[in-house]
């Protein structure tokens, strides 16, 4: 039993979405051509599979250990050494500025790498992910002296980072937060309690650097009065800063990722960015973090799929209902002959490959939006990222969880036991639908913020991409059925959007009722678009080429059996809010 990183499909995604034409051709990325990119990912994969994967089940079984007397948190044996090896090989440094010791690689590569990291050890990936989020915020908003003080050690992984947003009484609604920051010389002292702090305390690194949202004295109420501070566990002279872990949560999954209550007891902190503009720094790291949460679904569904496929090729139960497919050498056939087993495996494959393509395509747009010399091109890429990030986060996590469940179903009782890794994947994945903004918050972001932005500019930009791919392939006989379906569903999405937007102008509550279903409809059309882009990249290959056959046959399943769900979601959106809002509360 093993997981093999899907490097062939990753290479394909880079090729299909023209990585060399759009990303490694930009100034500063010349060294990272496709072959080099794959060499880096291959080297990365080898370490993850050899070193991190064997710790995954151990981390799940043992969990973290909190020592209340000293406020210390310990990860299971082996994690500290694994993290040290991860850093020694430079893996934490991949996308960062060489000025701070980074490798300076495109964001695209670190995004694709994170699929492999998550699939081999999701708990440990949280440490890398949070540190990356902190670095993104510091890079974009911190003053030069703060960057000099913190970035190099975070890039090298000697220090780790956290994001301290949530408080006991405010999660989704950050405007309620009460942690205060009092001026103290040229900096501040922070007091308050933060909850759900991933890797808030641990024994992997010498220092832990917290990015903390707090209020300055006299700050306006709500989100307009929030500022961001950087608070290290140890100060420059080695003194312990009074920020202590008050306990760890006992969770359904990601057991080796400590989720901490953090008490700031007058801890010294330094302002990042401008006063009362903390939400800006937060959103800087939010888009990348949300993309990463979507990838969690892709990563664990892939790992679950591989386990289920291996099982289905080996397990013999029942006879094929088609006598021609019966194996006369055995009393029963492998379960892979059964259409329903194929249905479940294809449910995963057909959506997961498209999601990987979407993630790859979007991460290329991250690079374009940050690095392209032309301002209009940067803006256009930024629009697509803003529009599609909530789709990736929400649909990626929801579909990922469903897909892992399908893999478990393929394996029957075996999949439900700890003899196989799928039950752990399922528990580890479930949180992705909740954190970094619940999936409903993503839907509200899509409908309430992204659609109206710039008078519908974002949606028009994406519609233009769809129109262009349809036009480009209008003459392709091979792609005709796929193009026709994409045309129908994008038209339907357009109608749903128009009708919903018109209604929502009159009735804001409607958005809350229909947004989640609308997001799913949107996601399915997006995946159909991704499939057409992937098919474009294989049509010219020889007819018996394995990749070409694989992509065409997988896409066929998607268009025949997954995409029809888009019409169902459209109907649900059309049903409006009444069935929810008119339901008498006392009847619950």
């Amino acid at each position, binding site marked *: 039993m093993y997981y*093999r990183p899907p490097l062939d499909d990753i290479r394909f995604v880079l090729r299909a979405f023209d990585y060399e034409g759009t990303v490694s051709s930009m100034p500063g990325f010349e060294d990272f051509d496709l072959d*080099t990119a794959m060499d*880096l990912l291959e080297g990365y994969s080898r370490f993850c599979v*050899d*070193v991190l994967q064997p710790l995954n089940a151990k981390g799940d079984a043992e969990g973290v250990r909190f020592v209340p007397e000293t406020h210390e948190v310990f990860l299971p044996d082996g994690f500290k050494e694994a993290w040290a090896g991860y850093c020694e*090989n*430079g*893996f934490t*440094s991949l996308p960062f500025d060489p000025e701070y010791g980074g*490798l300076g690689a495109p964001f695209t590569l670190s995004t694709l790498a994170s699929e492999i990291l998550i699939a081999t050890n999701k708990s440990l990936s949280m440490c890398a992910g949070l540190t990356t989020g902190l670095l993104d915020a510091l890079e974009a908003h911190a003053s030069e002296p703060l960057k000099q003080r913190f970035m190099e050690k975070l890039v090298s992984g000697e220090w780790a980072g956290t994001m301290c947003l949530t408080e006991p009484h405010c999660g989704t609604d950050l405007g309620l937060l009460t942690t205060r920051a009092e001026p103290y010389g040229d900096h501040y002292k922070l007091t308050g309690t933060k909850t759900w702090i991933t890797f808030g305390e641990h024994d992997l690194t010498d220092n832990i650097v917290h990015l903390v949202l707090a209020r300055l004295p006299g700050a306006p109420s709500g989100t307009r009065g929030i500022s961001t501070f950087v608070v290290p566990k140890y100060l420059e002279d080695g003194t312990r800063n009074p920020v202590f872990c008050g306990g760890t949560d006992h969770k359904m999954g990601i057991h080796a990722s400590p989720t901490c209550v953090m008490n700031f007891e007058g801890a010294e902190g330094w302002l990042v960015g401008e006063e009362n503009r903390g939400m800006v720094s937060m959103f800087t790291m939010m888009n990348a973090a949300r993309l990463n949460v979507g990838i969690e679904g892709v990563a664990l569904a892939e790992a679950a799929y591989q386990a289920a496929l291996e099982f289905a090729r080996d397990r013999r139960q029942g006879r094929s209902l088609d006598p021609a497919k019966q194996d006369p050498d055995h009393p029963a056939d492998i379960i892979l002959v059964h259409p329903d087993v194929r249905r479940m495996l294809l449910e995963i494959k057909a959506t997961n490959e498209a999601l990987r393509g979407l993630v790859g395509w979007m991460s290329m747009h991250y690079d374009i939006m940050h690095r392209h010399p032309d301002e209009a091109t940067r803006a256009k890429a930024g629009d697509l990222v803003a529009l599609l990030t909530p789709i990736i986060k929400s649909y990626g996590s929801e579909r990922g969880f469903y897909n892992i469940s399908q893999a478990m179903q393929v394996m029957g009782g075996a999949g439900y036991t700890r003899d196989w890794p799928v039950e752990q994947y399922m528990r580890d994945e479930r949180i992705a639908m909740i954190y970094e903004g619940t999936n409903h918050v993503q839907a509200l972001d899509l409908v309430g913020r992204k659609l109206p932005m710039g008078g519908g500019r974002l949606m028009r930009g994406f519609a233009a991409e769809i129109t262009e791919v349809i036009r480009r392939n209008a003459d392709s006989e091979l792609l005709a059925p796929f193009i026709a379906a994409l045309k129908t569903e994008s038209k339907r999405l357009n109608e749903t959007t128009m009708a919903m937007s018109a209604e929502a102008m009159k009735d804001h509550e409607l958005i809350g009722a229909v947004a989640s279903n609308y997001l799913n409809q949107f996601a399915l059309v997006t995946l159909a678009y991704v499939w057409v882009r992937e098919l474009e990249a294989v049509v010219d290959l020889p007819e018996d080429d394995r990749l070409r056959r694989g992509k065409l046959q997988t896409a066929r399943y998607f268009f025949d059996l997954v995409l029809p769900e888009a019409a169902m979601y459209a109907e649900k959106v059309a049903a409006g809010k009444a069935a929810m809002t008119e339901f008498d509360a006392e009847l619950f």
Partner: protein
Amino acid sequence: MKIGVLLKQVPASDARIKIADPSTGIDTADIKWEINPYDEYALEAALQLKDAKQASSVVVLTVGGADADQRIRDALARGADAAVRLDDPAFEGSDCLGIARILAAAAKAEGVELLLAGKQAIDGDNAQVPGMVAELLGWGNISVVDKLEFADGTVKAWRASGGGARDVVEASLPLVITCDKGLNEPRYASLKGIMMAKRKKIAVKGAADLGLDPSTVGAAAALVVEDNWSLPPERPAGRILEGDDATRVKELVRLLRDEAKVI
């Protein structure tokens, strides 16, 4: 001192092997390749000697086509300084002796004083090439080494010699040493190493470059003919003995004596 590392690519140890045609060998279409695991110990030993400033440089020597470049680049990324891929139509179909002749000629051309290799390659499991290379070069050979010390041109090597006994061998250069599991923990290529490997060239050399008579290598010169490829028989299912300990031990002893005939 310049060290040569003999490196071979082999099908990944977890690859599903299929026979393409009984007369030619395995189907390589869907095979993932990796560096022969024992060669990784050899490479690591060479890199450690270089890290300790006991070696000036490390050159990788591989017989194979361009499809082996990826494995060679991995070795360069881990820290090898240079690589020579030995590729020539005349080399096609070489047996172990032919391969050894090519590698011996390359080692001579590169001016190495110490050759490190895996104790065997996990594909053919012949364990012949390094010994033959030593013989062709007239060098000493210490095989299946799991501990190595190196000082002032003298090598001290430890090896298991069977039945729990261990040999300690001292020898002076030039030498061929084959490496076993336990010698070290092979390192991973760092990202910076991978980027640096891009700038290192893989030299490709043929018979003429090595001054090698083509008629001494390749299929025509091969003394070993491979034919009738087949997969080993499927391993029968294991048996779990039932009952209490006394019954099971008794039954186990009986089976080992009467069926397995090992006691």
